[in-house]
């Protein structure tokens, strides 16, 4: 896969520089330490929300920094966790007096570093709580759901938490509703082609021209199984079934649905998938409260898609519908 690059080692800082130059009124970039925070940080008397993780997943993570969603993000190298020092720096920059919630994906490096940052923040009298995103049903069976990795479902967590915080929720309230959102969120994905980490210079994995990987992670972690490429309808059904078997909604339930492109897959194909997902849900008397179709959590130029459902109650519906305005996510 060809890339538009300068020196691979400069990829992340150059990307961050360009991004913050594109949205100078919305984002501030702390260059020395690769942190992105809202330009109006710290927002006083609001619970602050921080995330962090490796680069290469835009809009995840930093694309969701903005009004109605996150306050700040620690940016790692491509597919690499940021350091505890970066996370602490974000924490201090965004803290508005009501505490900070860390919301991020369940990856070893990230967890350890966020934990270290939380310990350091605690020493500076900033109250930090953590909500881990573990939505990928393909990464572990239900009995070991605690081991699951965090993928596109984190966007729903950002959305719900951001709305609750903007509405004046307390630290505990924001944590509680985000945990509720995630308890009701599941994701499943398929990959058709790999991506290339600039520093590595070669694809993260190889896959046959007629194959797909069911349940692949967003860094190219192998999934549940490799199979012959199926039709859009079969893939949609596959993902829908895997999620419903795990989430077990009841007829009449309302869902937020996200069909997410991993990078190279065009939106047209995502809508073909959505069509079938919508059909299956309608057949099962599940109602789509809101649909999100597009690129929300990517792996650079990987081809493939993921599907996320979040089961909604009245509170989650209000928070999902709440407006947001970030460089990558706008809801009116």
């Amino acid at each position: 896969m060809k890339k538009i690059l300068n020196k691979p080692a400069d990829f992340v800082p150059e990307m961050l520089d360009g991004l913050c130059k594109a949205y100078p009124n919305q984002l501030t970039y702390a260059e020395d330490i690769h942190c992105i925070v809202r330009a109006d940080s710290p927002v006083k008397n609001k619970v602050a929300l921080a995330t962090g993780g490796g680069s290469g997943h835009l809009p995840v993570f930093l694309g969701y920094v903005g009004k109605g969603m996150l306050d700040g993000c620690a940016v790692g190298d491509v597919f690499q966790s940021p350091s505890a020092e970066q996370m602490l720096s974000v924490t201090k920059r965004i803290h508005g007096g009501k505490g900070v919630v860390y919301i991020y994906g369940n990856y070893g490096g990230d967890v350890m570093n966020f934990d270290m940052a939380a310990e350091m923040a605690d020493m500076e009298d900033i109250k930090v709580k953590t909500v881990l995103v573990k939505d990928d049903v393909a990464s572990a069976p239900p009995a070991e759901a605690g081991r699951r990795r965090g993928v596109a479902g984190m966007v729903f967590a950002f959305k719900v938490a951001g709305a609750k915080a903007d509405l004046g929720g307390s630290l505990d309230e924001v944590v509680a509703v985000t945990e509720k959102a995630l308890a009701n969120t599941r994701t499943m994905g398929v990959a058709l082609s790999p991506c290339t980490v600039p520093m590595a210079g070669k694809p993260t994995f190889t896959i046959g021209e007629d194959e797909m990987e069911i349940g692949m992670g967003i860094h190219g972690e192998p999934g549940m199984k490799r199979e012959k490429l199926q039709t859009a309808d079969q893939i949609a059904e596959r993902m829908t079934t895997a999620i419903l078997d795990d989430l077990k909604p009841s007829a009449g339930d309302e869902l937020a649905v996200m069909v997410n492109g991993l990078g190279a897959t065009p939106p047209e194909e995502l809508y073909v998938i959505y069509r079938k997902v919508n059909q299956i849900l309608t057949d099962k008397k599940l109602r789509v409260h809101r649909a999100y179709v597009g690129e929300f959590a990517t792996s650079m130029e990987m081809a493939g898609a993921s599907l996320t459902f979040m089961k909604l109650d009245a509170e989650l519906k209000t928070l999902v519908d709440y407006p947001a305005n970030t460089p990558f996510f706008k809801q009116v």
Partner: protein
Amino acid sequence: MSETFNSQSLIGAIQRASQALIDNSEFLTSLDQAMGDGDLGITMGKVGEALLVYTKNAQPTDLGKFLMSAGMEANKAAPSTMGTLLATALMRAGKEIAGKTEFSSADAAAMLHAAFTGIQERGKANLGDKTVLDAIHPADEALSAGIASGLSLREAGLKALQAAKNGRDSVTSLQNKVGRASWLGERTKGLPDPGCNAFVVVFEAIVGK
């Protein structure tokens, strides 16, 4: 008769370990590619480079502080799982010799033990989960036992190295239970654990062959 070691020994050990990580970059990457995200060589190489820079011309007086800062540098250079665990290990080892300008064999054993405990606390894995713990734990026990029984640090170190290698090899047939490799489930059985191998690379460079 108790040996003592000065700052130059410590710096030398760090530098040998750093160089070994750089030299084994491709090897570690290939192991991590088989069951993880294939970054282990890159991240360990970055840690090695950072520590070579950090130790170059260093003339530390407080060896504890020196090691703790080395940990911070390692974390900054590569905040990956192994990078962070290695950073934690350095910081915890540093705490054991806080304020000291030289250290004894017993200190060395205490440092390895603190490193092990730190990694366990930070990563929350159990023995047998097939992580770096399964190499560092037998090394820790062997080093402490060796020093306690009067062996020189080098002799005890060689025994500990052998214990680390045995530990590493003993888990190869198991399934990885935590971290990225755990998502591969059964497919990890029979594959060597990258983190265990990284520890052996580091420890062998410190102890010598």
